[in-house]
């Protein structure tokens, strides 16, 4: 197995995530896309960890933390989304432009 193949896969997922973040209107879907990006990062990390034979297991540890944090983010994100939905009965991020300029 080559490192590159994982990296390319990671890059692909990352970019797809970016696309999702940019085009999706529904906040929940935006969150989903973000998860994709984080997943891509994890693939990179683990692949590198394996490639480097890191005795400190830096890659894996890092990936674990990313997973945990990601979970926390989802919790926070959804909480905010719910709050907003309650206040304006819509979870579309592009309608949030009370403040600009």
């Amino acid at each position, binding site marked *: 197995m080559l490192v590159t193949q994982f990296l390319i896969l990671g890059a692909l997922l990352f970019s797809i995530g970016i696309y999702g973040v940019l085009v999706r209107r529904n906040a929940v879907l935006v969150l989903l896309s973000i998860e994709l990006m984080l997943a891509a990062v994890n693939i990179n*990390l683990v692949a590198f960890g394996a490639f480097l034979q890191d005795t400190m297991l830096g890659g894996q540890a*890092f990936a674990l933390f990313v997973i945990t944090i990601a979970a926390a983010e989802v919790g926070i994100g959804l909480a905010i989304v719910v709050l907003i939905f309650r206040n304006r009965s819509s979870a579309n991020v592009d309608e949030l432009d009370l403040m600009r300029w």
Partner: protein
Amino acid sequence: MFDYHALAPELIIGIALLATIVADLVLPDRLKYLVGVTALLGLVAAAVPLLTLAFCGDISGCTDTGTRTLFGGSYVVDDFALVLKGLFIVSGVLSLLLSVGYLESDDYYQGEFYFLLLASVTGALIMASSRDLLTMFVGLELVSAPAFLLAGWRKGDLRSNEASLKFFLTGVLSVAVMLMGMSLVYGLTGQLTFEGIASAASVSGVGDSPAFVLGVVFILVGFAFKVSAVPFHFWAPDTYQGAPTPVAAYLSVGSKAAGVVGLLALCYQAFSTVPEIWGPLLWVLAVASMTVGNLIALRQTNIVRLLGYSSIAQGGFILVPFAMAASYDTVGLSDAFFASVTYVLIYAFMNLGAFAVVIAVAAKTESGEIEDWGGLNRYAPGLAALLGLFFFSLAGIPPLAGWFAKFVMFRAVIGVFESPWAVALAVIAAVNAVIALVYYAKVVKTVYMDAVPVTVPVDRATQTPVPRPLALAIGVTAAMVVIVGFFPQVLGLFGEISERLVAGP
């Protein structure tokens, strides 16, 4: 067996965190303010070990002087860390003082608020000491995550919700980008600790490989977001405006400072061997931030939003000393480092002061629109004067502390006056300093030289008292602004600290 002395501040605050939750649960409503007191005490208590660590040499029975390295160099408690931890604790305390009156003015969830604030401060403390990518990342998250929530604390207010979501999304995305960068850097160097990265990067084929460049840039983008540098600044004005003002104050100081700490540690340690990568990068960011921030601030009508843009511009000034790193010698580097640290410290005090006054005034005028503040000095001369004090200090007018920040910043740049890029940067910064004056002065002008608008309930305003904690915060910051302005030497001790750190690994 850990070095508990070195970890004491973090531990104490950790305990304080839990204490606040418990207190919040047990205390009846009328005693809720004790929660704030608990949090305050926790922060103050955390400052004690800082002192014992800093002046260990002078204390009997304290043996472990000097730098303390933990966990294989991934966590370090040195003077630099101590100074900035001190800064974070102080800004935490001040933000807390700002919050108290604000929270009691309406039924917010006080206990949780303090808890989150403390959590965020803890994250900052960790960042100050962390010397590897992983710890830095987690610390950053611990700073941000509570802040996301605090921004939305005014639940009923659509703007607050909006602020929260915008802050959250951009924040998470920037972290994702940063992580991607970290993964690449890790992959290329095989190291997470800064020392390791630095030495590995000096090997040719690694430090100069495009992948490494991309890694560095992506990481720095993550922090550039925290210091709200253009073009990663968009969240800042919206969030400041929408979030509860004390939170905005904390964001513009505490979490921005955290971002700067990250940048400092990364640039001057992890990437100390490749300044030619981040130097130009930050040159661009600094110029863009100063210029865009100032120009947009010119046209703001809402005071908090104006402060938002101003803090973007100030962030630009903070980044300026990094920009010429590639051409510095060791002395120059330490000067630059010193400049950034000094700027952050002074900025913290004057910006918090400004926000404090803004909160107090907004409570009187019941408006955040600048034009509604006309003739403030008629019915609140003291606040008007302090407003002038802080705003002109932000503008860098001697003899207020701001001048010294600007001065060391210019000093760091001119240090390499041979380079046209340095001169250009200096000139741009100078012009920006002048432009900035326009909008700072505009506010002061309104407050002192305009008539009182009819909409403002003057008589009511005169009665509204300034909450004691707020007054205390204002007093402290004002004192600092004046003292530092006349005797900047009080910040001088960071000089040798920076030398040591730059000479470091």
